């Protein structure tokens, strides 16, 4: 009797736990993201609120659109400085957040974003 109860009431949760154990690795093992894809994810998360670019479906128009990036920013260094701290690299009153200085992006992530922006 007791055992029946236990199994009746525990079945649900046990199944859920088992399923999640199985599905978590499956989901994350789905496909490792390439560096370019990682850069795109970061750009969609942090840049599209203000900038338009290919694939951004909630894009803002506050900043300039991301087009012809390699022509407009031939120097990678310049792009890096702007993303790290535009108040220094662009102008003191700029609206653009200091993504590097305020820790939204670490050094490696900035490079991933730049690589992606250069595809635009």
């Amino acid at each position, binding site marked *: 009797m007791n055992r029946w109860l236990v199994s009746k009431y525990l079945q649900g949760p046990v199944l859920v736990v088992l399923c999640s154990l199985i599905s978590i690795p499956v989901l994350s093992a789905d496909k490792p993201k390439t560096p370019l894809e990682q850069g795109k994810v970061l750009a969609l998360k942090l840049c*599209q*609120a*203000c900038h338009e670019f290919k694939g951004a479906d*909630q*894009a*803002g*128009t*506050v900043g300039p659109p991301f087009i012809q990036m390699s022509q407009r920013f031939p120097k990678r260094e310049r792009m890096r400085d702007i993303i790290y701290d535009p*108040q220094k690299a662009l102008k003191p009153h700029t*609206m653009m*957040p*200091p993504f590097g200085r*305020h*820790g*939204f992006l670490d050094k490696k992530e900035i490079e991933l974003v730049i690589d992606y922006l250069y595809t635009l």
Partner: protein
Amino acid sequence: MKRLYFIIISLLISLVTLPIVNAGPQEDLAAYQKYFNKKFPDLSAVDLSNGMYNFNKDKREQWEDIMSFPPYEIAIDDGKALFTTPFKNGKTYASCFEKGGQAIAHTYPRFDKKSGKVKTLAALVNECRVKNGEKPLPYLKGKLASILAYMADTSRGQLMNVEVPAEPAALAAYEDGKRIYFTRRGPRAFACYHCHWEAAGSKIRGNELSTAVGQATHFPTYRSKWGGMGTIQRRYKGCMKNIGAKPLKQQTEAMNNLEYFHTFLSNGIPMNAPGTRF
């Protein structure tokens, strides 16, 4: 001779810089409103008070549909009932305000000489309650917002007219509000100024940004997102939260100074409150 040159040059310099150093609220206002007129030459002062709906045709149409049965009407009725119902001591709100509280909303916030501080209309409604033995109401929504909606409705069409008297404490409050408006806050380091001034008319994450000038004309406002009315400080707090900053607390000196400066920006534009927004 050298000395003469020096005097002439310093006189010239002071002539050039004096207007800037001495720029008071009126000079600010003229310059600020000119900025928006230049940025949006097709928008009249009245247009500016229509906020984001100036910049998106679809949203404009939806908004006009909503406005054919304005969702704030109930709040005006509720507010009127509250305003005219006597307190337990038999007195009414009308006893606390000049002109019985009719058509005064467009002149608030005001600088209060006695306390040396800015007083919002919301604060005065609560002071009136306390003076008459009632408990103060919560500041951001509900009954207080309804009372303000009713009072604002009696000012509809009047030109916004917030005064900054020429005395040090009032000017200091104004300057403090201005400073707060232009101060970066939160992890993204945005100031109110960035979104509603520099970037006004542009889109941020799919939202067209309204102009700072004109915003204060339609508060309190019914917001679909809130499912009800909210006061202007509720909206300020919303913007502060949205950018990940710690919101200022309602009715603090800082918040009231912000409201003072921000409402002053709409001087000369007809009050159109209560209003409605998505």
